């Protein structure tokens, strides 16, 4: 986790930029004030579907949970709104449910990569070459959909196979121990899988209610 936080020199740059911007922009200063007092960004200031370059400076500080909070909770995509604080636990009155968000992700993957068609198709009878060709299509579409909607990063930046030390008080959700799990931390072991976490989520607002259950429309071609 610590690897994703800004370094000390970077923090100096951020502090100076904030200082200058707060002096010249009253609205920014008010945002900073709210962040410092309430510990989170006021929700309406940051529309979920719009990346705002000017807020990019402030964003990293906001999306990092406090040290004790989970790093990448295995929650559905919608829970990872730009302010993953206590509010994420219960959907906001006007927010989408976890199920609507999950179904929408399926709809996007089907549209971009035909993932549902691929998973639902019976593979017996097709040659490996044919399946490989289909996998290539699904792979390129899935990758495009992922890149556009979720920014991924490894949980641990070390190379897989490297020996790392897991300190006392580590986040047991972000690091899963295997093998001879005996004794107390710090543990030393080999990194087998670097893990994944979403560092930025740009999923659009999902459709609500029954509409969310429609994953791909039927197609009718008119002559």
């Amino acid at each position, binding site marked *: 986790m610590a690897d994703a936080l800004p370094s000390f020199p970077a923090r100096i740059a951020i502090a100076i930029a904030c200082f200058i911007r707060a002096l010249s922009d009253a609205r920014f200063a008010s945002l900073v004030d709210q962040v410092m007092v309430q510990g989170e960004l006021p929700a309406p200031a940051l529309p979920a*579907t719009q990346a705002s370059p000017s807020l990019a400076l402030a964003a990293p500080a906001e999306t990092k949970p406090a040290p004790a909070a989970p790093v990448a909770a295995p929650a559905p995509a919608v829970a990872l709104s730009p302010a993953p604080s206590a509010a994420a636990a219960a959907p906001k009155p006007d927010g989408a449910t976890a199920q609507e968000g999950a179904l929408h992700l399926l709809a996007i993957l089907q549209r971009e990569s035909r993932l549902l068609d691929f998973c639902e198709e019976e593979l017996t009878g097709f040659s490996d070459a044919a399946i490989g060709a289909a996998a290539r*299509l699904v792979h390129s579409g899935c990758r495009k959909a992922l890149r556009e909607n979720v920014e991924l990063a490894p949980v641990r930046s070390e190379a897989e196979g490297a020996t790392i030390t897991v300190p006392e008080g580590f986040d047991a959700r972000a690091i899963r121990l295997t093998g001879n799990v005996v004794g107390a931390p710090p543990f030393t072991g080999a990194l087998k899988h670097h893990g994944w976490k979403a560092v930025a989520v740009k999923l659009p607002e999902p459709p609500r209610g029954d509409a969310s259950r429609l994953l791909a429309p039927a197609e009718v071609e008119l002559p």
Partner: protein
Amino acid sequence: MSARYAVGIDLGTTNSALADIDLAVEPAGPGEPLPGPLPLEVPQIRAPFEVAPLELLPSFIYLPSPHEAPPGAFALPWDAARNFAVGRYARERGAQVPGRLVSSAKSWLSHPGVDRRSALLPLKAPGFDDDVARISPVEAAARVLAHLREAWESAHSFETADDGSPLRLADQSVTLTVPASFDPQARELTVQAAAQAGLAKVTLLEEPQAALYAWVQGAGDSWRAQVKPGDVILVVDVGGGTSDYSLIRVGEEQGNLALERLAVGEHILLGGDNIDLALAMRTAAKLQAQNPSQKLDAWQMAALTFACRQAKEDPSRFDQPSASGAAGIAALAIPGRGSGLLGGMIRTELSRAELEETVAAFFPEVSADAQPQSARRGGLSALGLPYAQDPAITRHLAAFLRKNASAKPTAILFNGGVFKDAALRDRVAAMVGGWTGAALKRLEAQSLDLSVALGAAYSGLARAGRGIRIRGGTARSYYVGVEAAAPAVPGFAAPVHAVCLAPFGMEEGSAVDLPDLEVGAFVGETTAFRFFSSAERRDDRPGARVDDVSELTELSPIEATLPADHAQPSSVIPVGLHAAVTEVGTLSLELVSHDKPERHWRLEFSVRDSN
């Protein structure tokens, strides 16, 4: 109100983008770099009822049928009632329903053969005649620009102007890019489209210059080490649908490096999309040769074009062992149309040799004296864009450099998605080096897709005196046609000569008067002049006479209607001409009365169909 942001807008033929720089941010300290431009992620319709922010806004407009989606399917965060789509969805959906798609609006804007203010897009398709509300090329460009304006204002909705009102893009320092080859009328129409989109005040900038601005900004202080006074930079900009060239000289002014744009190329409707289409057509022909009953429909053709583009952009695809064991072959697949992805899938192959052969047809190895071939087409051609007849981009480039032989390029900068292929950059750079007899310095762009928008934003900073500015001025000289007073000879048009009105290199904000030109204008009637330009005649001063107008390029006529208020109708009053290049970057022409110089009439570009 002073601008808070410098904003650059790249209105592209196939993709548009916007970037901005916060002018309030100061350098972190003396000698530190100025703030860099940031691209805006543009929210756009990606599917009915789905809006997503993407870095590029494809410049496509889809005009849906009222029956194809429920109300609100194309709503945007800032407009719940929007009933058309701009961007990614428009491009993808339009590939399947071309009768409702408006594309290449920018190329139409520069098409002299049509009235660009008349509703003619999408072009007539059988069956769609009464069902689609057509829009004009100006309106199409305005809709793309309006989408970008709304996206920017929405992204900045948490900020306010000094007086507490929401930030408006119109109040910022907005730079809009145009192809260097745009003629004065296309520039004027671009400014009108911007005004229609709610951007009353914009500054125009040529795209290759914007790409160079982006390079200067990205290189930081090191740019002074990379080029020296005396260098001439060739900017080769090959976008999705157009190719554009410029030559920019590095000079010295009071000990500082200065940049000056020397020449720009002709407008060529030829770009990377043509290569993808050529690959797809070649592969489809191969499929049909194997199985004559197999004919691909529009949907399959779009999928094949996409597969070909992917293979073109990823050379590693050709390194995988193929089913037959042969090397250098990429497998392509057109998925089944129905819910079965594998059932109904058509598989084919593209070999590296075929790819290289096709790309080489667009970038053939030619000598410095190569001439673009213009194949005469049949007598009647359908209304459409004047696509380049010779697909060889390098031949057009050779012709451009030959016309400007006095400025030999010593460095080269590439722009446009086509040049993501590193081998192609090497090939073109080596070829130009072969023509000039010396290897060219390679300037590396920071982003082939976003450079124009980033550079346009940076140019706003430069205009405010906080960065290196490229000096340009008009890239051509302009002339009016004057009929000689000669006895009429049946069957022969009266001889016409041309008089230089605006010289080459006229800078923004400067003006020229031609009071000595003896012309008369009819009161109460429209006075029209033939209008010409030349990219080669650099030394003509205002008033210079050119006897043979065939040496010049004829543009749309210019005209003014004199109100019949004071003088007798149909009386002739002597007038002079006044030309100015506005701060915006457009050419403004006026008739000035000889007797009362305070009376003047603006000359407009004729929009009448010249066909």
